[in-house]
């Protein structure tokens, strides 16, 4: 999979740009296949545990992906990714003393899944609270399990579809060059995308309503 951000087209709203993209997919011959949702909540280590060990507060991200409805992903920035079942959310409530949810940190992307040959394309609207902040584009090529093997092929597909907004190779692709790609690698990409969009929040982007 490759997850990337599609900038909002000039003079258009997020919604209009999403429509533009999905229409392009349908013209390619892609077929609608339901919807998807990826969400992410930020936690930081509680102040009480910080002082005693004298270490900097680490952020932890707890994510869900409708593609893996029975799983819950817990990620640290540049750190390990834990894949647990959905009971993990209950556990996080119990761990309130150690990890506290950052206020209004919830960010998610929702949209439509499209199937084109063996490609799965998910175009989503990224929202924080109630406002649309940007557009996410995920392209998955199911037959290939080694990400770096099919990057050229993915790139060609992305170029056909995103034109000049084609992203560079995701960093997870280069990390372990013949490792089998897994759902955690997709989560890391979404986490990075969400963090990027959070930072853009301060600078209003032209065209976003």
């Amino acid at each position, binding site marked *: 999979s490759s997850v990337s951000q599609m900038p909002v087209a000039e003079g258009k709203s997020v919604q209009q740009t999403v429509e533009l993209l999905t229409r392009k997919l349908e013209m390619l011959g892609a077929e609608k296949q339901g919807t998807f949702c990826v969400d992410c909540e930020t936690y930081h280590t509680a102040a009480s545990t910080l002082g005693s060990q004298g270490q900097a507060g680490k952020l932890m991200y707890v994510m869900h992906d409708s593609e893996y409805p029975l799983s819950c992903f817990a990620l640290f920035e540049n750190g390990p990714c834990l894949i647990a079942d959905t009971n993990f959310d209950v556990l996080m409530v119990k761990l309130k003393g150690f990890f506290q949810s950052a206020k209004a940190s919830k960010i998610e992307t929702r949209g439509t899944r499209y199937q084109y*040959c063996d490609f799965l394309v998910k175009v989503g609207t990224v929202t924080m609270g109630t406002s649309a902040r940007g557009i996410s584009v995920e392209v998955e090529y199911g*037959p290939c399990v080694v990400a770096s*093997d099919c990057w*050229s*092929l993915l790139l*060609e597909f992305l170029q056909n579809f995103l034109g000049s907004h084609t992203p560079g190779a995701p960093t997870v692709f280069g990390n372990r060059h013949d490792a089998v790609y897994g759902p955690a690698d997709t989560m890391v990409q979404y986490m990075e995308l969400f963090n990027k969009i959070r930072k853009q929040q301060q600078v209003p982007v032209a065209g976003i309503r």
Partner: protein
Amino acid sequence: MADVLSVGVNLEAFAQAISAIQALRSSVSRVFDCLKDGMQNKETLEGREKAFIAHFQDNLHSVNRDLNELERLSNLVGKPSENHPLHNSGLLSLDPVQDKTPLYSQLLQAYKWSNKLQYHAGLASGLLNQQSLKRSANQMGVSAKRRPKAQPTTLVLPPQYVDDVISRIDRMFPEMSIHLSRPNGTSAMLLVTLGKVLKVIVVMRSLFIDRTIVKGYNENVYTEDGKLDIWSKSNYQVFQKVTDHATTALLHYQLPQMPDVVVRSFMTWLRSYIKLFQAPCQRCGKFLQDGLPPTWRDFRTLEAFHDTCRQ
């Protein structure tokens, strides 16, 4: 059309024959009229009977006469259809509505065409019989015809020999691992894993490859009871395409006298799929066409092509 006329239809005799038929019909109906009217009023019963019988006899005579005449004429008319290559259908040429329905000329065309087809098929079958392309060795040559039920020798190779050939091929290609099993008696089944790209189930009959199914590296190749699943196809279009091509390759690599060479050639060809997602098409230079990577590998050069880009 010329040869239809040259058969010599005697049109005059034809016309006479038709009037002879008319005469015969009327004489026959006169016989029945006479029978229907019965005996006419005459003075005596004897007179009545005599007159009736005489009248009846006259009528029968004339039927006989007309019938003889018709037989004579029918010999003169001849049998035009007998010598024609299309037999009775040749008479279609006599149809006056020919201009509207060109049935006869179409018939001639079809006849010529099927003649040619038969001729060429004969040539082709002769040529093919000279090549030993057949999958079973028992169909080769004339001598085999005398003992059609003889078992081809390559089908009764000892399992140990098959194991040796397979393990030698396994050692030849480091990126390819071959796992041999015999779940159904003597016939071997192979599970070939090519890098982290694909898996191939190969069903063998002795050293002949009977069937192959190509699936993704992350796809399940076993049934619920833990046996190799030789029937279900891949969920991905790209591997379904490769399965089709592998089946074509099985028909291409044939050498009944040296089945081990065939298996080795097939595996060498299969190994070229290690770059299935990394090799652009050698003709159009692209990776994707209709959403698929180049799924075809040339049998000789092993170069990658899209299905529609191959020569």
